[in-house]
């Protein structure tokens, strides 16, 4: 793993899910150490892109390199690579039959041979980093949405991965919890020297902490640059998304899919 290579490098990637082409011709470079915001309306293919970065979805064409090595197809090698990637899922994915502390200890216990007391100490440090040292013994169901998100963040950080991917980190959170999560992401990225990719449609909360921004719409990357350049853009497609206009180049109607459309009776002109 060479350190000067970009954290993520996509060349000519085409992603197909359930026989439907979701993204095509994606070229993307995520530099190390930066926070990159991947923005786009719902259904634009952000989650599909995330699934491709973690190796869950193999690209139909093109090449994906993560942390300087091409994504392996072999399951064992893929699991090895995933130890270097922390993912915060939209639904948190905390194991409900384990306590907060056990959840965070899980990747440490599975992937390291550290003795119990050291793991307990590391878990306490991770909880401290997200400001939740007091709730280590609680079960996930006893936490608020914002706290559960922070626990999931601490668990994603457990193995000190060089690359963090956040999938819609603000969904379902109030403005204060959103602010807490965003400042945590920025602080952790700087203090731990991480590379962060934030996949979201929350433009205004994300842009202030992002170093780079990418906008996905209509199955391709429509903008790539700094947040400043994004604010100054005149592209009607990007502007529609930034301003939240209902009318514009991004279609409101769903793209037709085979077998899903309702049969509408033919409309006859009155004589």
């Amino acid at each position, binding site marked *: 793993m060479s350190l000067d290579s970009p954290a993520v490098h996509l060349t000519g990637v085409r992603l197909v899910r359930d026989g439907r082409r979701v993204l095509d011709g994606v070229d993307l470079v995520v530099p190390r150490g930066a926070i990159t915001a991947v923005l786009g309306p719902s259904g634009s293919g952000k989650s599909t892109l995330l699934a491709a970065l*973690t190796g*869950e979805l193999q690209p139909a064409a093109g090449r994906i390199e993560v942390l300087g090595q091409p994504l392996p197809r072999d399951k064992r090698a893929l*699991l*090895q690579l*995933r*130890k270097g*990637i922390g*993912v915060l*899922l*939209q*639904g*948190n*994915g*905390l*194991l*409900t*039959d384990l306590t907060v502390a056990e959840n965070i200890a*899980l*990747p440490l*216990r*599975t*992937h390291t041979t550290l003795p119990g007391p050291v793991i307990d100490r590391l878990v306490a440090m991770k909880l401290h980093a997200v400001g939740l040292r007091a709730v280590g013994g609680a079960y996930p169901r006893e936490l608020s949405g914002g706290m559960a998100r922070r626990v*999931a963040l601490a*668990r994603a950080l457990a193995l000190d991965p060089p690359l963090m991917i956040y999938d819609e980190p603000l969904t379902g959170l109030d403005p204060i919890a959103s602010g807490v999560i965003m400042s945590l992401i920025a602080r952790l990225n700087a203090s731990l020297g991480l590379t962060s990719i934030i996949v979201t449609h929350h433009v205004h909360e994300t842009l202030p902490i992002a170093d780079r921004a990418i906008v996905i719409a209509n199955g391709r990357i429509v903008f790539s640059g700094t947040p400043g350049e994004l604010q100054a853009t005149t592209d009607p497609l990007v502007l529609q998304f930034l301003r939240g206009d209902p009318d514009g180049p991004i279609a409101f109607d769903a793209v037709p899919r085979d077998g899903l459309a309702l049969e509408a009776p033919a409309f006859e002109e009155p004589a």
Partner: protein
Amino acid sequence: MPFITATRSLGRAGLFSLSVLRASTPTRDFFVELTREIYKIGARSLPIIAVGGAFVGLSVTLLGYRALETYGASNQISALVGLGLYRELAPVLTALLFIGRAGSSIAAELGLMRATDQITALGLMAIDPIAKAVAPRFWAAVICVPLLTGFFCSLAITASYLEAVHVIGIDSGTFWQVLKDAVDFRHDFLVALEKSAVFGGTAALVASYVGFHAEPTVEGTSVATTRAVVNASLLVLMFNFVLSAFLFGK
């Protein structure tokens, strides 16, 4: 093409079973999970197995007594109850009660884990979800169901004894002697436990397979639970016939 679809899902279930066996590595975490599952699906099934066993013992005794009385052989009642229980009734009924009590909960738990991103999260943490969530449940069932069958037999025989000796009036010494002469420890009792281990493993594999692959929705979880109970029960009944034909055929 229903034939191709059926063959494909059979193959998938077979591969799933192989991956469960491959993922069963005896780590410390595995034993922690295994103990928890044995308590959850084994120990907590004890009450229904006890009640089920007692009533089966009572009804088989009553039924057998009426039939044997015609031939003046009513003191052979414990042989009939013993053989009937160990060879067929106890393994099958325990497995069916287990499926209703624990198989459904295995399918529902795994379905909900899928629906709430827990299985995805495990994969993303480079933890094999089959090793973490499925393998301990499978082995817990393989260990628990034979023990539950033994428990079922004890309760059924006790209930049968109480009815035959204290209600019907058969001599207590005859009851035990006839039972001892008729039932062989190796060929009847141990075979019952072996059958039960197969049934427990089958039930757990079917329930985990449908739960693990459930649609990540509320409806998907409920469909998986129903399917787990129906498919596992039918498979147990079919396997019971095949195993009985082989084991007791001679």
